[in-house]
């Protein structure tokens, strides 16, 4: 038992104290050795043309695609997983796997402890007030659907209104449309301008006595805009309207403090923050969650069941029917440990510098236009290049080992707004570097040569 615990500690904290004290992201220049290579935490070296020393933490990035070292710029779709997360999940299945909240046996207790420790870790990471406000879901999408079903069932009726914005991902549009269809409520959409910034005056006018909920994204996945959510929340609260923030695109890139934001719901996905797929979180204020009916029924969420009547368990279990994704939860906690060791402020600063560098370099290419030029932006660049279709750009970049996203980014209304069917999108993460951006620029020059 002792041995197991020690191993676990090792798996959880593979980074030496020395590395923690260093500033591997911001001060990467200083960490270059004489050969121009970077030492990673696992002792492997990364070639000098791939810059960020954090790259070595990610096994999937240690490969070549089409004979070129992989440059992964599709982080807004999903991020890669550090070795610490992969090893943590493996350790869970090798040493801890059992069902949670059930058995009296040791393994069940161990799994339950890890599952609930993870909940506490997530609470602390977003500064929620209580672990009962942290509900595990399959992802941000399911978290929004949970609120649409449960909150909707309780509070939304014919003639009511739900406010969303013009830059929502489909996952923050469709659940509300389904709810409106079911109840006869109406969907209202906060407009945006050409830079990709929301019209706050129009928003304020939209808030009426029959507005039941405001649901907006923190960061636009298609444009990168960081929305002024604190102001959006404050305006809504003045009229007593609760607010849901879709944090899927913000939580990997900046510190999140739900109590400072004062949002009522905050949702996010594990896989976009270097954690596993199939796990996500709904943070909800306890007072609201207490009043909301269960979303799904099943085991683990009940107090007592007879054929006549079932009474439901307390928060957060009321919303977690069935055996949860335990490995996903412990993997997500490992991702949070990883992010915390680096520091979210430092990640934000690194990505901001990448965004500035990439914007400048890309705009030097004649015929390249960027969609989404908000003053406050995350490291997402949507662009078109001459009249080359994004799919053709994507194929040629892939031949150069560079992975970008092309298409409508599950935000068709945003594409319609700009009257384009699709864009190319490069989105950056903590392991990306300026050298990789230089390779993107070179590859785009090649793309143009093909289409001259």
């Amino acid at each position, binding site marked *: 038992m002792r041995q197991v615990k020690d191993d676990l500690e090792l798996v959880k904290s593979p980074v030496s104290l020395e590395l923690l004290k260093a500033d591997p992201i911001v001060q990467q220049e200083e960490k270059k050795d004489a050969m121009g290579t970077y030492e990673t935490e696992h002792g492997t070296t990364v070639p000098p043309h791939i810059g960020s020393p954090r790259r070595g933490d990610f096994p999937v990035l240690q490969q070549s695609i089409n004979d070129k070292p992989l440059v992964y710029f599709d982080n807004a779709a999903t991020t890669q997983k550090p070795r610490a997360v992969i090893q943590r999940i493996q350790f869970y299945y090798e040493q801890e796997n059992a069902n949670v909240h059930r058995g009296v046996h040791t393994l069940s207790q161990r799994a339950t402890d890890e599952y609930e420790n993870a909940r506490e870790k997530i609470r602390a990471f977003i500064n929620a007030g209580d672990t009962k406000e942290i509900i595990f879901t399959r992802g941000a999408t399911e978290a929004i659907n949970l609120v649409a079903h449960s909150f909707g069932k309780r509070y939304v009726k014919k003639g009511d209104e739900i406010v969303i914005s013009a830059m929502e991902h489909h996952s923050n549009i469709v659940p509300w449309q389904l709810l409106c269809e079911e109840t006869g409520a109406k969907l209202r959409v906060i407009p945006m301008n050409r830079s990709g910034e929301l019209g706050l005056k129009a928003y304020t006018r939209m808030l009426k006595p029959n507005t039941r909920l405001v649901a907006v994204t923190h960061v636009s996945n298609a444009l990168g805009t960081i929305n002024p959510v604190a102001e959006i929340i404050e305006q809504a609260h003045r009229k007593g309207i609760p607010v849901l923030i879709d944090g899927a695109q913000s939580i990997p890139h900046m510190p999140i403090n739900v109590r400072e934001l004062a949002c009522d719901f905050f949702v996010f996905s594990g896989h976009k923050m270097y954690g596993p797929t199939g796990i996500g979180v709904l943070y909800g204020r306890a007072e609201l969650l207490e009043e909301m009916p269960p979303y799904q029924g099943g085991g683990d969420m009940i107090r007592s069941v007879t054929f006549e009547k079932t009474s439901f368990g307390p928060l957060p279990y009321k919303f977690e029917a069935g055996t949860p994704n335990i490995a996903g939860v412990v993997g997500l906690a490992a991702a949070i440990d990883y992010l915390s060791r680096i520091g979210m402020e430092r990640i934000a600063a690194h990505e901001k510098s990448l965004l500035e560098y990439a914007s400048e370099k890309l705009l030097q290419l004649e015929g390249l236009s960027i969609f989404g030029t908000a003053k406050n932006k995350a490291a997402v660049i949507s662009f078109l290049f001459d009249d080359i279709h*994004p*799919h053709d750009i994507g*194929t040629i970049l892939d*031949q150069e080992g560079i992975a970008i996203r092309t298409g*409508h980014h599950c935000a068709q209304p945003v594409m319609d707004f700009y009257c384009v069917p699709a864009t190319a999108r490069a989105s950056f993460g903590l392991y990306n570097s300026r050298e990789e951006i230089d390779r993107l620029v070179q590859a785009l020059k090649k793309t143009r*040569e093909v289409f001259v």
Partner: protein
Amino acid sequence: MTSDLKQLYQEVILDHNKNPRNFGKIPSPTHKAEGYNPLCGDRYTVYLQVEDGKIVNVGFDGAGCAISKSSASLMTSCLKGSTLAEAEQTFNNFHRMLTEEIQPEELPGKLCKIVALQGVKAFPTRIKCATLVWHTMKSALDGKAAAATTE
């Protein structure tokens, strides 16, 4: 540029992408269908004028990538003047060329310049780009009301 990429974006393809033939609605279509790829947003309408079992005129409009547009241009060029039976055979040939281990010369009947699209085969994610307008043409001839998709 890799040889696969050269095969994909060869001269004929780039030319038909830049100067698509038969682009635009034709005056009196007897058949028409819309094709849409929801994954990438490519959208085309194919118009055909069929008289006495022969395609006397054909055109298309819409927007998409170089592969889908050149495929539409090459397809319409090839089909103009074909009988419906020949069109069916060309459709099957095109499909087999991209999905089977077969050389174009082994295929029966007309292929015209659409052989240029053979390079798409090396890019599995792009095959749907090439086949979209073909499915659209087929559903126009079959008189299917619903929009064609590549799914």
